[in-house]
């Protein structure tokens, strides 16, 4: 099984510990992981801002970096969603389709491909799971609260395998955090307010740590938390599964 690690640009630059945790976690599960060095970004920030037509070369670079792997695994629902659902182009149709078939968000890969039933980690904390929207509603990592279907959450199930970890119930189980990519700056006031409300929900329900499948949501929430000088911390779920100590 040839597996490539996809490290979204902002994780590469600002949250290396998340990529390290992903890498180590996969290795613990006896997976050999490659890190294709020429990868950069999937182009989502550009495309969501309305400049998708500028991203052809970025898409090409992505496809070249990740071709020839059986699986591509990334610790970000949002970036994986973008690759899976927005990449297109006549020039490299077959290559793109191959990548779209092979790419997985981490909790999806652990659940559906590796069929993980046991995680060797401890984390004795009260944790709030922020269900990042693109992973939740785009990749269907879990059911959304709008849907009338059987309840499931791949991410939650994995977190429940961690010893001592106590998930808190939120008033609004899957409200957006307000990050929204460039929305965070083009509608800064709105983004802030949605984020503050999200934090208040976690706080009200006693979370000491907020975790998510997406570091981008957490970057936004963490920015607000630190400005508020709050005691609540954020941590990517890969770090928790990899046995981060609280």
């Amino acid at each position: 099984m040839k597996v490539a690690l996809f490290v979204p640009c902002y994780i590469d630059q600002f949250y290396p510990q998340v990529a390290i945790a992903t890498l180590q976690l996969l290795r613990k599960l006896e997976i050999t992981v490659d890190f294709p060095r020429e990868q950069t970004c999937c182009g989502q920030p550009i495309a969501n801002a309305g400049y998708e037509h500028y991203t052809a070369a970025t898409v090409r670079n992505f496809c070249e970096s990740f071709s020839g792997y059986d699986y591509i695994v990334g610790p970000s629902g949002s970036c994986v969603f973008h690759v899976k659902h927005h990449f297109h182009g006549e020039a490299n149709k077959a290559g793109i389709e191959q990548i779209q078939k092979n790419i997985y968000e981490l909790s999806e890969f652990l659940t559906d491909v590796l069929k993980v039933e046991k995680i060797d980690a401890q984390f004795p904390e009260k944790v709030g799971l922020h269900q990042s929207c693109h992973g939740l509603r785009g990749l269907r990592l879990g059911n959304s609260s709008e849907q009338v279907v059987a309840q499931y959450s791949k991410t939650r199930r994995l977190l429940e395998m961690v010893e001592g970890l106590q998930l808190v119930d939120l008033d609004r189980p899957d409200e957006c955090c307000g990050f929204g990519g460039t929305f965070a700056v083009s509608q800064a006031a709105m983004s802030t307010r949605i984020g503050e409300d999200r934090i208040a929900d976690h706080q009200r329900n006693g979370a000491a740590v907020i975790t998510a499948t997406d570091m981008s949501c957490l970057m936004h929430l963490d920015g607000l938390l630190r400005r508020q000088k709050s005691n609540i911390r954020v941590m990517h779920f890969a770090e928790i599964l990899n046995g981060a100590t609280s």
Partner: protein
Amino acid sequence: MNHSQSSEKFLRDKQRTGWHDASLWFVREKRDAVAKAVPEWETLRTLASEIKQQVLSDLDQYLISFEKNAQKNGVHVHWARDGKTHNEIVFNILQKHHARSLVKSKSMLTEECGLNEFLLANDIEVIDTDLGERIVQLAEEPPSHIVMPAIHKKKAEIGELFHQTIGTEKGNSDPAYLTEAARQHLREKFLRAEAALTGVNFAIAETGGVVVCTNEGNADMGVHLAPLQIHSMGIEKILPRAEHLGIFLRLLARSATGQLLTTYTSHYHRPKPGGEMHIIIVDNGRSEQLGQEKFRQSLCCIRCGACMNTCPVYRRSGGHSYGSVIPGPIGSILTPGMPIGGHPDLPFASTLCGSCNDVCPVKIDIHQQLYHWRQHSEIRQAAAPGKKRLMQFAAWLFSHPQAYRLAGKTARLFLRMLPRKAIYHRWNHWGLSRELPVAPRESFREWYDKNEGKK
């Protein structure tokens, strides 16, 4: 103004924002509860979506048979290319009957056409009879929500408005008292009205009849009292057969307000004895939207308003912040393609959270359409003028791995070295309310090269 600016204004009143958000979330939760009591909910949504899409693909045929069947029932059918034509048709009908007063029950289409202003300018009295609609009419404001037009108003504000406009007692904002006062005030209007106009929720091709859903019975009251009845509908309101109502009525009321069914579901098929019945079928940009493959599905909308109630942005910015007749997620994908006005940046008034897709009873792909509209040059320009260069640069950077690595390293270095003041200033919109991430010395790639011994 764009949505970003108008929502910022709304957000300044923190307490009101919280109140507005909570009021709409309450409706969303009511919807959840009743939807979850229907085990076949997702099947209903799929059926509804498929029926609507099938209607759109054969719309011309359905409209023709609808017209034929309505005419067989003795109904006058009119066709209006745009809002202006619609208004003139209404005016001509009224003139023919020497009618000077019209009672209306809720119709977003007539808002879209600007009917009220047009008729008032022509000396016709127009009274909106839905309580919420009447409130915004008295306040001289547009509706802020398509199902709950006055949801942005607090009780006390309505009390004060009624005191000033219909003479209720000052300071009394007891809902029962105000509702009763409105009822009395409207009753007198109903009794005097010479014509009644309603919107249409569903038009049945097979029978030529129209269906109107209300909670106050005001459509019936108007239609039954006035000798002349007019129903205005968009071309997309068609359902093939009456039996399809079994799906749509269940979805509509539950999605809209969390009711099992609206209190009144009125079916109008033919004029009452001695009366006259007209149906006006309006296009106003819809055929154009129908011709655009990526945006066609927006015409499946049954105007339940659920996407507004669920939208984290709508709940915290209010309907007026969109500047459009139809606000919220569905408004943001209808407005750019139709002549209904609205802020130019609406497709950007969203975090792309996708909750609208999942709540929509007819499964419109709102989230994807927002993304597609963003790719239009005027729209992205309106949302963030001057971003083009930056995006060009980013695109270049992301396709040149070496340059990307260098830029990342430099940016992190700057973030670590620069004094706080040089980073946090008013042009840094991120930093107005948030800390930036702490820039690490090593990127993942640098760590990997060092520890995995590769170059």
